[in-house]
């Protein structure tokens, strides 16, 4: 077992974990934060995207032990209780989610994308989010949502 200390959504957690435990299962199973979904086992779909020290990371690609000492933000920590972050709000207003399974990952990836590039073109959005897969929306309204969030200064 390895001792890991991670600050998640502003709260410090310490736990003994198996060295092979992935960050996503540390978040889901050890900390009980079920908002981060698992969509594949090859780091292809991005459903498990979270922010580690402010950057988007597929949490199935990182061992919990590698996140030791980091600050992690998950979908649960993006907005204060009862409120929506501007990116979440934009996804709602543009009907950018259907089954919702990819949504937390897309929202986190978008937050990171807009951090790097506050006013991306359509092309930059499509390229910037190509690590996240959605089966329901055909990406159309997701692109509109990112554009709307950018306009809102997210």
């Amino acid at each position, binding site marked *: 077992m390895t001792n890991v200390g991670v600050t998640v959504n502003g709260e410090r957690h310490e736990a003994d974990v198996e060295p*092979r435990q992935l960050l996503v299962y540390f978040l889901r199973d050890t900390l009980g934060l079920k908002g981060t979904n698992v969509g594949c086992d*090859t780091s292809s779909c991005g459903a498990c995207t979270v922010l580690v020290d402010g950057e988007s990371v597929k949490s199935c690609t990182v061992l919990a032990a590698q996140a030791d000492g980091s600050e992690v933000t*998950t979908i649960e920590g993006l907005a204060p209780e009862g409120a929506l972050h501007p990116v979440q709000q934009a996804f*709602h207003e543009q009907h950018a989610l259907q089954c*919702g399974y990819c949504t937390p990952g897309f*929202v986190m990836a978008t937050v990171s994308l807009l951090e790097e590039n506050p006013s991306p073109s359509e092309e930059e959005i499509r390229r910037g989010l190509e690590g996240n897969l959605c089966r329901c*929306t055909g990406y159309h309204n997701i692109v509109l949502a990112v554009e709307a969030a950018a306009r809102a200064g997210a």
Partner: protein
Amino acid sequence: MSILGNRVLRKEDPRFLRGEATYVENLLLEGALTVTFVRSLLAHARIVGVDTSAAEALPDVQVFKGDDIDVSTGPPPIPVLEQRMRRPVVATDVARFVGDIVAVVLSPDRATGADAAELVSVEYDPLPLAVSPGDAVKDEVLLYPEIGTNVAGRAGRMDHDPRLFDGCDVVVRDTLVSQRLAACPLEVRSAAAEVGADGRVTAWLSTQVPHRDHFGLSATVGIDPGQFRVIAPDVGGGFGAKSAFGAEEAIVVWLARHLGRPVRWTETRSESMIALPHGRGQQLELALGGTRDGKLLAYRMDILQDAGAYPGVTAFLPNLTALLASGVYAIPQIEVEGVSVVTNTAPLTTVRGAGRPEATQAIERMVDLFAAEIGMDPVEVRRKNFIAKDAFPYKTATGATYDSADYEAALELALRAVGYDELRAEQQRRRDDGTKLELGIGISSYTEITNPLGEEEYGEVEITADGGAIVHTGSFSHGQGHETTFAMIAGERLGLPIEKIAVVKGDTDDVPRGTGTFGSKSTQIGGMAARGAADEVVERAKGLVGDYLEASAADVVLDTVLGRFHVVGTPQPALSWAELAERVGADARLDELKAQHDFMAPPTFPFGVHIAVVEVDVETGKVDLQRLVAVDDAGTLVNPLIAEGQVHGGVFTGVAQALYEEFVYDEEGNPLTGTFVNYAFPSSADVPAWEAIEMETPTPANELGVKGIGESGTIGATPAVWNAVLDALSPYGVRHVDLPCNGENVWRALQEAKA
């Protein structure tokens, strides 16, 4: 003003946006054991022995073999299919595809389960293979030797009319393959089950059809239906692949009951790719004949359907393909013959479109081939052969009765939107300049069938103590937005805002019956059932209001704008729903403000025209989809925002089949596309923005005038893109490219044309 027809934002969004959804894997189930399946590594093999000793040496690990679990998923679901081709939930004697379950591991957690599954040693004796349907249909290698054939089902007429094409100036022929696809819901399958203190079994399933699963699993596992509850919580997509439970769900429920302990299973993606039933897998040998002036006269379709190792509903799908063979055209004579065969591959099921994409791909490709053969613009050939808008209801040569449509109007709308004449001019300019980037324009005019089984759906509306309402529906939403659409439909009848209306679904204890969601039927039968129940509640409320206002119920009216009851012609005194609920509640009569309604209706036939514009690099074969204009008519739209979302997703799925995706097996039956790394699921960077245009031709099948919209986009888009690619390649003598039209297949077609 009615709320119907407005772009209302979804009520269900916040919990998904905040990460508060209730997917099965999120369920906390104290003390649950984890199931891990040991799956066959060979596509066809006798199972000589299964050694579980090393696995069971791990702490708290148990392994079950086939003989330990005496459960069969039952015969194929449709009586005309070969009923003896049954799947034992765990293969005991023979494994018939890579992924067939050969042992079941129970462990305290997922990681231990994965370790233990690797330690189960299975001895196989390889058997000869029938991987492709072309091989299987020869009956040289049999998957079920005791039956003596691989044929699981047949469709259409078996008699040939040797004079079918008499009178035709031209007959074009081609053999098309609508390739095998993986449905890829972002949430893989997941199931959990436990036995309660009262002895009842509860199963949580990631499914589209909780009530069908309740019926089927109780029979399969042998549980009294009254002692069994199925809960479908939030489900992360299904696309048809979750419309029937599998061996896995049956095992989970059986184990929970057998052990008296909670049990859970969530497949991995790589497991899902090889074991969650696939879609399509249909080969179509086609001949279309007509006159030199463009009139279609006769059409022949021979279908060879891959049914996978254990036939399910897909073995029956050639019947649906046959039903829609005529497409949007008045073709006087059509012959269809279909045969479904079992192969040493994963089972197949209904995947978005299911039988209709194949029909549309077939006729739309053949119409383009016919147009090319007689040297006529494909637009003209379509115009000459459309079923006229005053011909409805129209019965086709294969027996479908289309309800309502205006194909010509949809075509004109799409042509204008895409700028057809300008595109043809641009195409010619490029050709004159000797381009290496050919422009292609492809048209697909389609119709399809929704609510194809003409089913009945359950709806219930109850007024709550605070004057709101709860809709209970037998329909199920796994992304379709029922919580909003059904609230709009009920709210419009009740005069309540959608914020006051909750929609309950997916729990067989809360909803006594239901058919779930598949075949694009939810709004037209589930929405109508909710509407009917709301109307009955209003009638009951009028009786109660009459008592309170000392008036006859017949004189009481509901002002649906204000949500208040009053006596006709006398706006005051009035009772709002909240006031009524309070008074009725005080009299302990709230139960009377509850009504159930079952609604049944015949199938409906949405239609539309999609036009794709592609650029093809004739040196590399690379296809760049530049535009896709989709005109879709699914009757009256309740919520155009949600309908448009369905079109976007549907078109995306259709484009994925046209350009990217194919589930591939090698000659030994090994899956070559068993992960998201090698299965070509397109990303946002692989597709353009969609140009969706709505048209609304109401159906007479229901009072809302609604048809289904969930699959139309998929059905319409694939042939539009396919035709566009062939249109781009027409100067090179290419008349056939296999799906998907990826760089490799296009390049090969170009090389063959050169040779």
